[in-house]
């Protein structure tokens, strides 16, 4: 099978492979990753993958947010000697460019600047390829690229060019296409949006979430904690039809007659794909039946900026007070303010478990639930997600976004069952007994405000969870 070199953008390493695999699935492209763990390590800036045809590499580069560029792969090596040896064997792949093709030769790297003199030296070492076409630095027909991979030098200061040539591995190929989906990050920039709030999700992450949902024309997607609608813009941009709900209608409306979410979607040309917005508590929801949606994508309330709440009271009212409330609601005077029901806190670990059961009910078979879960990195164990799973729901991706003293995980769960399940009861689950594992995200809010002091002495500046 032909091999292609993927160069990743230097961001969100843990999201690279889930995105590649999701978009492969969405577009019906079979993506074969390298079989050995080292070559498949998502922390490395480039990866050699197998695809059926060149067009597939181009399609991936047009939809994956984390692809910087894709190349036809010719060779790799731990030294230039190895690289050249392998490249000679790839001659059938590049022989067609020998005769009469204008070209440009680039020597680049990640995390490092290669001195001009050595770049020139490297380029000359490829002279055996015998390209007869003219060198064109502006508009060449092909770009040949030599990519030296250096270890991540983040957080260390070094003298310019120090360690030059001490790369981990070097790769060689022909540029096919630069990743054009990255332009969407600027398009969906929150600060340029007609409507946003302090819970809005940053552009790049909301695009990555949208790709995890497999958003495309005709898909029906639901956000039960809609807020200011951040995930609805990229998903509707990719063609999906969106329904959103929130316990607090003001989050979706903002000020003005036209709801804020609709104003923002109008700016992106997708207002007609925002099917509806509704105000309700997801734990008391009015959905008539299940198996409605292709995906549920959401940023649940963690309790820091936008607290998790649900209808009800912390302490039940005595009966006489309940009766008073009832009479008041039933016989309200015309000048009364709209009724605002009382709410009580909603523990995050309950919420997460409820969300999975709700997903199983509301998703079509094979549908996806994509959501964030905050967690204390030091305490985090894989079991956290598995403690909240239920039959018929399977974790297919779990990507950490690391902020140092805390992190959050983007979880993608697929509904694997064809069975019909009843709607969730949302009964508060019985207290977790002392022997069972307590998920790290339990009582997250308290830990957040203590700056996770019990585990680390780091000072936490109280930055927003959704918009760090």
């Amino acid at each position, binding site marked *: 099978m032909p091999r292609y070199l993927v160069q990743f953008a230097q961001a969100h390493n843990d999201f690279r492979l889930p995105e590649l695999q999701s978009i492969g699935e969405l577009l019906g492209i079979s993506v074969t990753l390298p079989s050995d763990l080292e070559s498949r390590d998502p922390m490395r800036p480039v990866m050699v993958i197998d695809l059926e045809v060149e067009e597939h590499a181009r399609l991936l580069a047009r939809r994956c947010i984390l692809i910087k560029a894709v190349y036809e792969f010719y060779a790799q090596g731990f030294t230039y000697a190895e690289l050249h040896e392998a490249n000679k064997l790839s001659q059938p792949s590049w022989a067609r460019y020998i005769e009469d093709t204008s070209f440009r030769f680039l020597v680049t790297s990640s995390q490092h600047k290669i001195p001009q003199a050595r770049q020139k030296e490297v380029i000359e070492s490829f002279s055996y390829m015998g390209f007869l076409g003219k060198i064109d630095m502006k508009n060449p027909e092909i770009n040949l690229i030599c990519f030296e991979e250096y270890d991540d030098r983040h957080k260390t200061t070094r003298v310019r060019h120090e360690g030059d040539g001490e790369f981990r591995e070097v790769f060689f190929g022909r540029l096919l296409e630069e990743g054009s989906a990255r332009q969407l990050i600027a398009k969906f920039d929150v600060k340029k949006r007609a409507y946003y709030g302090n819970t809005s999700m940053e552009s790049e992450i909301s695009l990555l979430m949208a790709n995890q949902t497999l958003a495309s024309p*005709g898909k029906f997607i639901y956000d039960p904690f809609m807020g200011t609608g951040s995930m609805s813009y990229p998903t509707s941009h990719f063609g999906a039809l969106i329904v959103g709900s929130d316990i607090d*209608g003001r989050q979706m409306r903002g000020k003005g007659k036209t709801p804020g979410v609709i104003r923002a979607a109008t700016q992106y040309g997708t207002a007609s794909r925002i*099917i509806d917005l509704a105000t*309700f508590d997801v734990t*008391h929801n*009015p*959905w008539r039946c299940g*198996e409605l949606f292709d995906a549920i994508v959401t940023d649940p309330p963690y309790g820091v900026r936008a607290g998790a709440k649900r209808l009800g009271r912390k302490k039940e009212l005595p009966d006489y007070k309940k009766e008073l*409330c009832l009479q008041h*609601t039933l016989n309200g005077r015309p000048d009364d303010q709209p009724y605002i029901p009382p709410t009580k806190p909603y523990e995050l670990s309950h919420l997460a478990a409820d969300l999975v059961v709700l997903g199983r009910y509301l998703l079509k078979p094979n549908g996806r639930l994509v959501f964030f879960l905050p967690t204390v990195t030091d305490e985090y164990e894989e079991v956290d997600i598995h403690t909240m799973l239920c039959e018929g729901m399977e974790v297919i991706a779990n990507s950490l976004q690391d902020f140092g003293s805390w992190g959050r995980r983007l979880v993608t769960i697929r509904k694997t069952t064809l069975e019909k399940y009843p709607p969730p009861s949302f009964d508060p689950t019985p207290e977790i007994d002392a022997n069972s594992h307590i998920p790290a995200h339990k009582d997250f809010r308290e830990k957040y405000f203590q700056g996770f002091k019990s585990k680390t002495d780091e000072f936490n500046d109280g930055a927003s969870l959704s918009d760090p």
Partner: protein
Amino acid sequence: MVRLITHNLLACHAKDCNTNNFPLAFKDVQLEIREAEFNPEFLRGFLPKLEWTALVDTAKQLGDTSLPVEQPEMLDDEFLKNLHHVLLEIHVEEGSMTCPNCGHVYPILNGIPNMLLAEHEIG
């Protein structure tokens, strides 16, 4: 917004209101018609989810009589176009929806329905 596709999926969810709680009855509505993209694939896929009689009756109530009383076997283009219009292009911007069973009124303001329950209505 409130489009009929959504209306067809919402039932009254007040405590103990489990039968005859659908469809919610529109009242004092202000309508707007807005164009939406035609996607026959989506419509075909959605048909099995619809409560057909409720949809036909509600459309009629809002002044659209283009849908047949029985769901047709053959989904021709004309039928799908009419279905598209009814499901996705009629927007109820103001008014309310009333539960036929318990009488709960769900108000609609600027196209967003308030489906919150009062304290005595939750289980």
